């Protein structure tokens, strides 16, 4: 999976690590898997399913790839890269330059696509979008969760890791749907009925994700989590980075960490916010926003309210990508 980002993020890679390409393997048509080890022989730091790394594929080219190895084995990291003749040439450089033994600078793993705890998961992968899903399935399986994977692609030969996944987990919970055999994924029937307590994690091409978003409109808010592998606007990006919230009335500032809601964070510093469902469905926790850009994740504000940008539902919504600070009327 490649995540395209703006120049600001691409240029400022933090925690650069010198790594070596340990193994290169062709895992599907035009897809190579790269196993990376640290140059100093040490294990990598721990990471969670959904994480990606920045890979410096040339002097001025940085690309982000999801990790598809196991977080329980930190001796190496694995990414898989689809050759796409895109204008910027990142994937071509990976395919051409990152041969076995080549040195490569990467970043510490970062997670814009964290797997939230739930009883049931529906994973939907399109093509190379399978990569972040692989560690997620491992975690769901380890924790004894009820999960299913729907993996779609143009043909089996283009679908990396499909055979290994079926061998590991069996065909019962895993549907591999190749377009040239069974046609397009029937997302409509898959998603027509919202399921209780089920989170949908989807990664794949923009068209597929747009369709999934459409079908999931009747699902409880917060059920759908997506990551685009060539993101037009990286809407999942900064929104899962920590950000600050300033409460103007109490004069307090609090950091909202990944995995914490604005509501929880402001309650923790003593602000009183009336809330009810805490899932973005009822609108009770509506809060006036003095300044800052909001990524709305609720199911009740209208487009006009969103455009005005002066209210948010603090139980689910967050600061938008690139907005480090929200100022709230609390």
């Amino acid at each position, binding site marked *: 999976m490649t995540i395209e980002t703006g120049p600001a993020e691409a240029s400022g890679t933090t925690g650069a690590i010198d790594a070596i390409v340990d193994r290169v393997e062709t895992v599907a048509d035009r897809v190579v898997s790269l196993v990376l080890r640290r140059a100093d022989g040490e294990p990598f730091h721990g990471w969670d399913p959904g994480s990606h790394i920045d890979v410096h594929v040339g002097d001025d080219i940085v690309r982000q790839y999801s990790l598809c190895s196991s977080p329980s084995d930190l001796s190496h990291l694995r990414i898989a890269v689809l050759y796409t003749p895109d204008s910027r040439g990142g994937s071509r450089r990976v395919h051409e330059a990152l041969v076995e033994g080549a040195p490569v600078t990467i970043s510490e793993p970062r997670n814009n696509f964290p797997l939230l705890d739930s009883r049931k998961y529906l994973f939907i992968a399109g093509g190379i979008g399978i990569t972040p899903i692989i560690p997620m399935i491992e975690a769901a399986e380890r924790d004894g969760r009820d999960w299913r994977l729907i993996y779609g692609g143009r043909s089996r030969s283009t679908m990396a890791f499909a055979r290994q996944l079926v061998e590991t987990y069996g065909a019962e919970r895993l549907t591999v749907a190749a377009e040239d055999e069974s046609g397009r994924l029937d997302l409509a029937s898959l998603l*027509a*009925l*919202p*399921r*209780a*307590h089920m989170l949908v994690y989807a990664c794949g091409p923009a068209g597929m994700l747009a369709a999934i978003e459409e079908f999931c*409109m*009747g699902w*409880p808010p917060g059920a759908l989590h997506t990551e685009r592998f060539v993101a037009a606007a990286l809407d999942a990006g900064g929104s899962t980075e920590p950000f600050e919230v300033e409460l103007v009335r109490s004069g307090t500032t609090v950091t909202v960490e990944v995995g914490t809601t604005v509501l929880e964070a402001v*309650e923790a510093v003593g602000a*009183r916010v*009336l*809330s*009810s*469902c*805490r899932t973005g*469905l*009822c*609108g*009770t926790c*509506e809060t006036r926003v003095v300044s800052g850009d909001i990524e709305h994740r609720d*199911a*009740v*504000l*209208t487009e*006009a*309210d969103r455009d005005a940008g002066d*209210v948010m539902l603090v139980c689910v919504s967050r600061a938008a990508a690139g907005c480090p600070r929200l100022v709230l009327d609390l």
Partner: protein
Amino acid sequence: MTKTMIDAMVLDDDPFSIENIQDPHPLLARLRDAGSVTWLSKYNCFAVAGHEEVYEILTDFETYCSSGGLGPHDIREDEGWRPPSILESDPPTHTVMRRALTGVINPGTVRSLRGPFTPPAAEITSALARLDRFDAVTDLAEQYPIRVFPDAVGIPQEGREHLLPYGNMVFNAFGPKNAILEEAFAEGEAHAEVVMRACERESLDADGFGAKIWDRVEDGLISVQQATLLVRALLSAGIDTTIFGIGNTLSVLARLPEVWAQLRETPSLAKFAIDEALRLESPFQKYHRTVTVDTVLGGVHLPAGAKVLVFIGAANRDPRRWGDDADEFRLDRNSSGHLAFGMGLHQCVGQPIARLEIEIVLQQLLERVLTIEPAGEPVPLVHNVLRGFTSLPVAIRAA
């Protein structure tokens, strides 16, 4: 079924007896003490009284469906007395109706109601503040929502006297076929006919919620029948419950002089006081769900097809959720997560309007009333599923 009845403790209490309706809390405590899930032998259904278990039922819309109806009978097996409402539907039918309603009632549209909703509250409370005593239910709670809410929906003036008796039918039908229900339905056809007519497109004002719901028919989102049903749902769900919300809140606050003083000092706390009062005296006390597949809840096996009677009132006072002082009003309590408005997909879509109405009335009253105290015993309403008072005498000192 045999196994189930051994698993769950069997109680022969009648939650629909007059005694238990008028003073529900001892029974609700007994239900919780007997286990989160018990078997009610009188009605052949499960009673669920623990907060965790009630929350589970309300959020697991697949295992505990609503299309079987909120009453004790599965409305899919015989014809109900009316076409099923949004409350009695599951996804995907529910989804389109809910989307239509959310498009019409949302934080923005509710905000714009504060203007028109305030003057009637000011007028009613300033008249009452000139008295030494009044009835907080008949003189205040019953006066206010009926004055503002039907206007917001945009129904005709004529026939509004049928709204309360109609709501009384709708909600009482979520209980068993007893004398209470019979009385509610005494002139049922007349009420239903007037209300259904008020919900038709040509009856509605151009700018009310009703007309906006009908606009969604043109968008192709909902059918003509669904539009009628949604307007009907607003009318039946949006009046009685709000009246009881106001009355019940005042029934709690009238007994707490320190809290009244605190609220006068900091009126912005009123909304928290209301939620805490709704937790303690939830207007919508209980309703049914239908189990769709064999499942286990609170350690008890529930077979597919069983009815569960969900006790909101019990869950909202469950010490396991709220602590040992669950029966007490605490202004500093975080009462978020109370289930008075439901939870999950069917959580009350009109709750911001209800909260707004109660808050406006309370703030207007706080402005004008220095002290308020009970001036006689409140008279509880006899109703299968709603909790409220038909009379709540209070003595006041004007500010």
